[in-house]
């Protein structure tokens, strides 16, 4: 690994990413992947596969964070994003290495949607929360508010601008979080379980919203039906390794692959028989 930019500049490039939890357990064991601009890719795998940890690396939140058992936990051979190791960075966003020097720009480019909206909505009103990102980017209050209102309009929450987040429904809170991410103007969206805990109507609405976005999308999810709707390509992650990468229709129909990595063939593909599993 070198500090030079890779020749091609995919929207997301991960190379040799290794990460250990604070207790020494390996979370990522040499992840390799590239996502082209405009692609919509599903990141699937069982619980504890390292999906969320990988998403956090794209935004530069890891390594280097204490708590949650996620900090400073590099093993002897680990190469962390932004580490001072001679091996250099191992995640690039549009060719820009994810290092502390670039965190400000990286966090503008990569929008990270958290699984639990209560982790993300911390402001007294929805509008203030959505304007939080633009304010951090240095926009004047009026301009940030205008952007926030635009984004709330996009997620169909214009009427909720002055509401208290705690009083929104779960689906509304999820959409408010998405507005907060969109307000940062990201070119890459990293979505962590975007449809988890949503009722069918809210889920459908959220899927439509995500489907209407033009940014590059990496969606960590267990909702394989959604994957079929939104992601032509899937990456299967298990025990910190990419074990399969290919067209969603093929991977998700591969019963052996799905079952061996704690997944299930989605209901819609149950009748298909694509052939032997891949790894």
């Amino acid at each position, binding site marked *: 690994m070198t500090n030079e930019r890779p020749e091609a500049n995919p929207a997301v490039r991960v190379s040799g990413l290794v990460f250990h939890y604070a207790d020494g357990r390996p979370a990522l064991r040499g992840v390799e992947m590239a996502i082209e601009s405009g692609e919509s890719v599903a990141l699937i795998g069982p619980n504890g596969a390292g999906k969320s940890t990988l998403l*956090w690396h794209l935004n530069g939140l890891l390594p280097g964070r204490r708590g949650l058992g996620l900090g400073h936990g590099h093993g002897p051979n680990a190469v962390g994003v932004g580490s001072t190791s001679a091996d250099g960075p191992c995640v690039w966003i549009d060719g820009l290495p994810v290092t502390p020097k670039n965190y400000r720009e990286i966090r503008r480019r990569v929008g990270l949607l*958290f699984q639990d909206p209560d982790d993300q909505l911390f402001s007294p009103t929805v509008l203030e929360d959505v304007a939080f990102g633009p304010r951090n980017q240095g926009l004047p209050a009026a301009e940030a508010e205008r952007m926030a209102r635009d984004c709330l309009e996009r997620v169909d929450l214009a009427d909720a601008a002055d509401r208290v987040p705690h009083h929104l429904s779960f689906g509304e809170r999820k959409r408010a979080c998405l507005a907060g991410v969109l307000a940062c103007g990201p070119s890459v969206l990293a979505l962590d379980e975007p449809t988890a805990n949503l009722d069918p109507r809210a889920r459908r609405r959220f899927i439509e919203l995500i489907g209407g976005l033009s940014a590059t999308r990496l969606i960590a999810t267990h909702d394989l039906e959604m994957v079929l709707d939104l992601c032509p390509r899937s990456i299967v992650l298990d025990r910190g390794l990419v074990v399969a990468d290919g067209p969603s229709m093929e991977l998700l129909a591969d019963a052996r692959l799905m079952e061996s990595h704690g997944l299930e063939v989605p209901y819609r593909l149950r009748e298909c028989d694509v052939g032997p599993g891949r790894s």
Partner: protein
Amino acid sequence: MPSTDSIAPLRPRIDARIALLTTLVFAVSVALIPLGQWRALGVAALALAAAGGYLGVAPEVWMRRWLGLSLLVGMLGLLVGLGHPARAELGWAGVAAAIAAKNAVMVGAVVLLSTAYGIDALLDALRRLGLPAPLVSTLAFMERYLHVLADERDRMLLARRARSVRSGGWRGWLDRGRLLGALFVRALERGERIEAAMVARGWDGQDLPPPSAPGRRRS
């Protein structure tokens, strides 16, 4: 899901800043009353009751909130009473009762203020009184997550009740202690995730943007 106690503020005519400063002066005055001066404390309690009547706060709402804090006040009295110099004169029970009573009156005043005005008006009053913006933002932040933690507590209580045949006796108290411990750990973890979510949107760990103007928030 049981929700937190959210009674609409009364929005009294007196400016929240004046009410806030009056409460502060009142609390300091009560704190300065010497231990054992029950008559002076009684006068203060009467004045407080009159203020509650004037502001139109329903006594049951006020008392319910006040009782929620009374255990803490009682514990404080018992603990401080042990080593207080006035113990020789008033005895441990006397000192503990006097400290608890003084604190109860002060807490009652604060509860009255928050019940009558609500968090929005008080945060705005603090800002207009010149309290540093980061402190006001932090208080607003705290208020936001008190609801989340209260919901979490309710869920844990519900889950505990669902698996409990009996909850009385020392085992019940042990369970409550464990529940509080678990809630504390969850709160810490939640705090980590919230900070991560803020950093992910470009926050550099410096000042938070100030909270919104008064009257803007709605349920």
